[in-house]
């Protein structure tokens, strides 16, 4: 099974682990992730305004590039996934954006959202299958009580992201079960960590992260996993009161598959 792979900027710098473990685990699962040639930064936030075209072009380029290679596109960073998936939706459904983006890019074949964008977790669920994954685990993480932290970007808006039930998601819990650990459900797993506001309003982000950690600890989680470098930062480096170890989910995946 071969996919085009979009790592994104942060995975090349501060979140190298997220990327490296992700690649190793994919290899162990028999999946080839081909990094897109010459990808550009997705912009990290989805430009919501209807008249923002230029800021969407880098995502369109990545999408076109995957299409031309004939591959589905796998993302790993939540923010990149959010941006690329929604821009792809615009290219499918918003005639104005589609026309303008195509006019600007002057492609040989105009792009209308043909590329299928899936997140690494969706790949595990829908392509590999959690039952299959379970069979390939050599080092089950028995006894570990792990809370899944979803954050915002993967789930919302659910009409566009089509990722999981936005209010009661289960994909990461199913993942945790597959790698042999025990998922801990807690109600704030889909609440915001504070996001980019951490840059200018640290206290606000801290408050948000603390609430999440508190909720997870109360339900008995001993560690958290996430798919987002910014969530990682807010929960790990930026929180004040409650401390829980936070990992990228790919790290645990690699560990379970014996390729860490």
């Amino acid at each position, binding site marked *: 099974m071969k996919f085009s792979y979009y790592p*994104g900027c942060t995975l090349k710098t501060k979140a190298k682990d997220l990327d490296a473990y992700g690649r190793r685990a994919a290899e162990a699962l028999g999946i080839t992730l081909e990094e897109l040639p010459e990808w550009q930064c997705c912009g990290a936030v989805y430009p919501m305004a*209807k008249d923002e075209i230029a800021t969407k072009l880098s995502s369109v380029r990545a999408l076109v590039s995957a299409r031309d290679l004939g591959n589905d596109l796998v993302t790993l960073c939540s923010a990149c996934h959010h941006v690329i998936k929604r821009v792809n939706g615009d290219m499918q459904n918003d005639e104005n954006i589609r026309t303008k983006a195509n006019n600007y890019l002057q492609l040989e074949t105009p792009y209308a959202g043909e590329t299928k964008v899936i997140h690494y977790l969706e790949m595990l669920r829908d392509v590999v299958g959690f039952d299959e994954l379970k069979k390939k685990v050599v080092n089950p993480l028995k006894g570990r009580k792990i809370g899944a932290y979803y954050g915002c970007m993967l789930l919302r808006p659910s009409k566009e992201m089509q990722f999981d039930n936005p209010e009661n998601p289960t994909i990461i819990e199913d993942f945790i079960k597959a790698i042999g650990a025990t998922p801990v459900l807690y109600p704030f797993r889909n*609440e915001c960590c504070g996001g980019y506001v951490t840059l*200018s309003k640290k206290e606000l982000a801290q408050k948000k992260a603390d609430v999440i950690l508190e909720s997870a600890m109360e339900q008995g989680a001993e560690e958290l996993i996430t798919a987002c470098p910014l969530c990682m930062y807010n929960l790990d480096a930026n929180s004040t009161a409650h401390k829980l170890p936070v990992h990228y989910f790919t790290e645990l995946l690699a560990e379970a598959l014996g390729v860490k």
Partner: protein
Amino acid sequence: MPATEKELAETIRRISGVDTRKCMKCGKCSGTCPAFGEMDIHPHKFVSMVEKGEIDELMQSKSLWTCLSCFACVERCPRNVEPARLIEAVRLAVIRRQGENYLKADQIPELLDEKLPQQAITSAFRKYSK
């Protein structure tokens, strides 16, 4: 020539793509917003003020810079109103004006710490400046 408030309101509605008339004023957005406490104009009021065309006041609002873009209001709105899009549109109306950037490049270094991911800087730049 600077745009009149009425023209501005029209622009906000156009670039946000939001039909504020669909709002039934239930307040679920404000019941849901994780940044509510840090906002001066709360999501439900934001929608109502766009509806009424009170854009000048919104452009001064703290809420523009505290919205986390978490899309909880969008997700839970029973009428598909999407308040986050309105906040983004007003924010754009501010930063698209010459010299009105909320965050300037030379302010960045002092805000950084070694663990902060690039993603945060890029996001903040996209959200706060043009």
